[in-house]
């Protein structure tokens, strides 16, 4: 019982942390490198505990992200739904990839996410973003192994602590 609660706490806590990290200020030069934390966290939880993640949750998380960032309502919901769908489709394969292949897969997923975002913004009639717009998948790819190891370690500790 207690263990389930600790796990739930880790799950929701990590997602809440993403919103904070997304808002966190960075030096001007580093801003384009800020990874889309929410997507990364969703990838992790979809790979590890898929019974928790569904399209509905991705949609709601996206809506919350929209409300916080003040962009178009539904923009992040759409992006996360697409991401989540692809993930759950290929989960069985992604899960057993070695780390570097997983990182590449994360890169591909977030590159796709950027393309979706570009399409949405183009439909909304916004100007084409600068070239730095495309740097985000790269930093997400580089951040992925660390995030994965950190969360795996946290979860392993929870398990040891309980048993």
């Amino acid at each position, binding site marked *: 019982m207690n263990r389930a609660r600790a796990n739930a706490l880790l799950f929701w806590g990590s997602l809440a942390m993403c919103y904070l990290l997304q808002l966190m200020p960075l030096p001007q030069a580093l*801003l384009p490198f800020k990874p889309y934390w929410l997507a990364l966290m969703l990838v992790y939880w979809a790979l590890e505990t898929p019974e928790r993640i569904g399209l509905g949750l991705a949609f709601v998380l996206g809506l919350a992200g929209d409300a916080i960032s003040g962009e178009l309502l539904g923009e992040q*919901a759409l992006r996360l739904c697409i991401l989540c769908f692809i993930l759950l489709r290929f989960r069985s394969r992604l899960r057993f990839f070695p780390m570097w292949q997983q990182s590449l897969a994360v890169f591909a997923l977030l590159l796709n996410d950027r393309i979706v975002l570009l399409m949405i913004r183009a439909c*909304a009639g916004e100007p084409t973003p600068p070239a730095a717009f495309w740097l985000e998948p790269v930093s997400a790819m580089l951040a992925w192994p660390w995030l994965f190891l950190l969360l795996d370690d946290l979860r392993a500790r929870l398990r040891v602590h309980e048993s």
Partner: protein
Amino acid sequence: MAISNDSTPLFAAGASSTLRLIGYLALAIVLMVADHRGAYLERVRWTLSIAIEPLYRLAALPARLAHEGRLALADREKLTEQNAELSRQLMLAQARLNRLATVSEQNQRLKELLDVQHSLGIGVQLAKIIDVDTDPFRHRVMLNVGSNQGVNVGQAVIDAHGIMGQVVEVLPNTATVMLITDPAHALPVTVERTGLRTIARGGGALDTLELPNVPVSAEVRVGDRLLSSGLGGHFPAGFPVGSIRAISNDVTGMFAAATATPSAALDRSGDVLLLHELPDPIGPPEAAPVTGPPAPAALPAAPVKGGKP
């Protein structure tokens, strides 16, 4: 085997899941279109502001603590130096102000003589920038004042060096400011030296303004200062906006395209000023009050005008 007790089946359940995806995508698109047309998100944000505003403050907390820590540990020598520099600047500014006071008094008298209505009286409100970042490709900053402090959408925001932007969204205790360098922003400016009127658009980088339509015949030089022209009524006239950095021909060759560096320190967070009274819009003049013969004299004339012809 590990795969066999995997909860997501490899092949089954494809159709229903795809259907659900399509459902959610359709829902998201409907939401986006509705929001794009009707701006519902602002109302959603307004109702959620109790949850959202503390989040902004929480996210800005580490940076603020770091800043304050640096301030607390700053060495004495540097502070003394800064103090000396600031008091020197204050003295200069004071001297200039004293001169300006006489000029403004003189101006006031001349205006009274000319019977000019609008004044340059400007109320300001001090605000602090909350250091959060919602999207690096949109140039927005968050202020720590909102509608509870009397902030309205459309107010101009300036710092000590020039115009920063305007308020685009107001929550109870925070406000969002669109900077003049946002690609979606444009403001009317005049070149100080020649008086040429043009539009300065955001260039997408924090240190760039674009002036896309400068006539080729116009005389614009590198280093020219740009002032807000006050046309359109969103910004008061005469505030520094930037200075010309480079001039080139645009692709069609019909216009010269210039880039400018904004005067305001947009990349530094700190205190800003919110201009309170929106300036009078400069547009077509109001219909002149009826002048002419006094009423009793006009009365008999009216039927004639009414047109017996």
